Structures are given as structure tokens and as C-alpha cells.
């Protein structure tokens, strides 16, 4: 389970699924105060989630610039706009790394989530190796009353997402939990 602070990744929209990308980019910025922040600001403005910022001072770059490697997740549709904005602001993009698609889907889970070992429920998804629980928001009303959670799953492909959801459904049946899924838009 990863922590997605700053970006609510829960999503029911667009056929219940939002496709984002996991991407790394190498930027060249001026080595002066405020430049890094200026480069990072558009990323959050476009709803991107910065996972890592790695500074690299490479010998071949001139002394007044700085190489920065950024790993981020962003909605697929917004990536091009982000790149254009960065360029317009004078940020030199040296390399745009491999993109990895990320499908996200949220479902609501109701029942005795804690007593049925929520840790195990998450583990079962994470252990698949192809999907993981990206976000979990648990509401607990009171002792012995059923709790409710919003659980967001992340997977690389659509079919892996379907397999992860199948797994979640069977775990829910086994543990007597109710799952409320988004209604998929009809295929057009």
C-alpha cells in the first residue's frame, strides 16, 4: 500500500475507472533558489502525485544547471498539457521516461472490516503482484456496528484490474462483507 497524500485518488468516474500514468522525467533547471519549486508547482496544479525527486549533479551538465529526476503519477489525459506547461516555463525536459498505465477503481466495502482482518484483506490484493490497494478510507461508527470503507485499487492493465476486483469480491463473500461497486457506463 502506498501513500497518496495530496491527491485523492479515489474515483468512481468514467466507467468506474480512471487511467493514470506512472512516469519518470528528467528535467534540467537553473541552479538557483526557487527554481525547483517552480518546476514542481505545475505538477500538483494538474493533479499529479509526486512520488520521488532525485537530484543529480552530473559532470557533463554545465555548472549553473541542475539535473532533477522526477517520478510522478498523473491522469493520462493531463500528461501532455503538463509537459507543454513545463516547456513554456523554460524547464528543459531532457528525458521523458517509460510510461506505465495505472488503472484505478474505487469500491465501497461495508461490514465488520476490522474484525475480519482488514490487513489481510489488503494483503490479499497486494500479494497478487499485479494490483495494489492505493488508498483506504475507513469510517467506524461505533463498537459492534458495521464499518464502511472506500478502497481504491490500482493495477497496470484493465484485465488485471478485473482480476483484482474478482479477488476482492471473493474475499468479501468469504468474510461476509458487502461490496458496492460503481455502475459501468454501457459500452457504446
Amino acid at each position, binding site marked *: 500500500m502506498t501513500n497518496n497524500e495530496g491527491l485523492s485518488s*479515489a474515483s468512481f468516474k468514467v466507467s468506474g475507472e480512471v487511467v493514470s500514468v506512472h512516469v519518470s522525467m528528467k528535467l534540467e533547471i537553473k541552479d538557483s533558489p526557487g527554481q525547483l519549486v517552480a518546476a514542481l508547482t505545475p505538477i500538483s496544479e494538474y493533479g499529479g502525485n509526486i512520488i520521488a525527486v532525485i537530484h543529480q549533479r552530473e559532470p557533463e551538465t554545465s555548472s549553473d544547471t541542475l539535473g532533477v529526476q522526477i517520478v510522478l503519477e498523473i491522469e493520462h489525459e493531463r500528461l501532455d498539457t503538463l509537459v507543454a506547461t513545463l516547456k513554456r516555463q523554460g524547464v528543459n525536459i531532457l528525458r521523458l521516461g517509460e510510461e506505465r498505465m495505472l488503472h484505478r477503481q474505487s469500491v*465501497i466495502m461495508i461490514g465488520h472490516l476490522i474484525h475480519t482482518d482488514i490487513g489481510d484483506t489488503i494483503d490479499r490484493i497486494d500479494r497478487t503482484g499485479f494490483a495494489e490497494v492505493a488508498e483506504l478510507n475507513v*469510517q467506524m*461508527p461505533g463498537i459492534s456496528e458495521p*464499518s464502511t470503507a472506500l478502497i481504491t485499487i490500482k493495477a497496470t492493465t484493465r484485465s488485471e484490474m478485473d482480476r483484482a476486483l474478482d479477488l476482492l469480491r471473493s474475499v468479501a463473500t468469504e468474510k461476509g462483507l458487502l461490496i458496492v*461497486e460503481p455502475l459501468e457506463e*454501457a459500452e457504446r
Partner: protein
Amino acid sequence: MRIAVLGLGAVGKGVLRVLGEKPELGLVLTGVADSTSAWIDPAGIDPQTVLDRKCETNRCGSEGRSAADILDSGAYDVLVEVTPTNAATGEPALTHIRRALGTGHHVVTSNKGPLAAAHTELEELAREQGVALRYEATVGGAIPVIHAITRGLIGNKFHSITGVLNGTCNYILTRMDDEGLTYEQALAEARQLGYAEADPTYDVRGIDAAIKLVILANTCWNLGVTLDDVSITGIDGLTVDALRLAADQDCTIRLIGEASPERGLLRVAPRVLPRSHPLVIEGTLNAVMLSTDLAGEVTLMGRGAGSIETASAIIGDLLSIRDRFVECR
């Protein structure tokens, strides 16, 4: 055209009111029965007199006569079957309908029971006898969804049917969403307002919606599915927190019936929908979305129950039978 009405509850009374108020429709009442009495007159019965008598004595006709006598008399063209639903056996309606169809009479019903129990058999019987079996009022109350499927959209291939098919559940979910009521509070309110039965199990567990989904699916695709084929989850386990979590994403929760042979789907379950979705409707309303190859998506919405509203669907069936069969005889 001569009409016999079996059952004089909310729906039967609604039908009689319309017959009384709109004599120009040319529908003549020749028989009427409730659980303990019946009245037969081939020359025609005044609907208002029947309603008054039922109100005063709780019987619509003479004791010692019954629905069976009307069926035996044969003094009607179309049977209107509006007795209570029994989803397991379909009775007493199934016997009434078999009898009427078998003796060459058209049937119009609002009763889901016989369709859940024996849809294919009854359609075959009607076809053999060259008569019509119409059941617009069984699904979606006043909404002409069966007409839409079988007539208006007849040249289309149907990809899927999705709908809000139970007004009681929709009312409860609307109230939980709007007012933050718990499931129990919203159910108690629905009972007080007469939107929920004393025993709401059929509604809140999704069984009523599932039966209606089966009727729609068989009308669309004629695959002979039954209630056992539907995966059913009701709304009785839903929490206020679930609605709140959905609301945080500008979504809400509704009990949705969904059928699509292409996608191997036949299920009733609470689902999360964006608030802007056409199936997010308020209160006791019902809605059905048909996804087709030619027309694209067609959504119908309206009142899913009520005495006069359900009568509207029955009258529509009666008049379409008259146009199709009786005039050209």
C-alpha cells in the same frame, strides 16, 4: 370490448375509476371479482356502482360467486388479472391466466407472480390460441417500457437494460442521501408514508427488482431466465457512511438492476453512480435505460406505482389489444 377484472385492490379500483370516467374508450365492464365475491353481467356493469358497493360492504359482488364463475361464463374479451403477487407459485393468477388464454381470451396483468413462474409457458399458450398476453404494468408502473421494447424500439438489438425498478428502495436511498437518515430511519419513514409494506423484505432485499429485471430480460431477449439466475444484493446492509463516501466523490448509491447477455450480466445490487447519471432519480420514481444498436441509449422515467398510474399501463395494454385484434375481427 368487454373487460373482466379479477382483483379489486389499489390497481383494480384504479382501472374501474378510469373505465367509469372515460366511457369514450369503449371498454365495457362485464365481470369483476375480489377474494370473496363476484359480479357478472354480459350487458355491462357500471364501474362506479361496483366501487361504491366495495367501499360500503368490502365486497364487489354476490357472495358465493367467484373469479372462477367469471372465467366459466366466458362473457369477456380481455381478462384484467390484478390479484396479489405470489412470486413462488404465481397463484391464484397463474390459474386464472392459463384458463383465460386457454379458452381464447386476451389477458392483461399487473401481477409479476405468474410471469416469474411461467412466462415462457404463458407466451406459448397465447401464441397457440392467437391471443395477446400483455403485462406493461408489471414493471415500472406507469412507464411504458414494455411497449418501448416490443414496439417503439422493435428493430433494435438490445445491448443492455439498466434500471431503478423498486420505488421503495429508491425512496429509502434518496432519504439516506439527502438527510443522512440511517437505513432503519428511512425505512420507518417509508412505512409511515405507505411506500413500504409491513413486511418490506421483498423490496429491500432486491427480490421485487429482480423479478422485474427477469420480466424485462425475457421480453428483450426471450432467453427464459428465472429469478434463480439473478445475482441479488439488497439495500438492507447499507450504511450512512457508504452514502457519505460516495457523496464525497459527487456520487450516490442506488439499487440498480442490470441485464446484458453480451456481458453475461443479470444482477440487482446497490451501485455507486455519478449524481449526473440519468438513473439517479428521486423518491419513489422508477427509471429504465435501454442501450441499443440503432437508437443508442433511451431512458424512460416515471411513477413506478400507484393506483391510477398502474391503471394507465393497463388501459394502454387494453387499447393496444383492441387496435390490434378486436377492431379487425
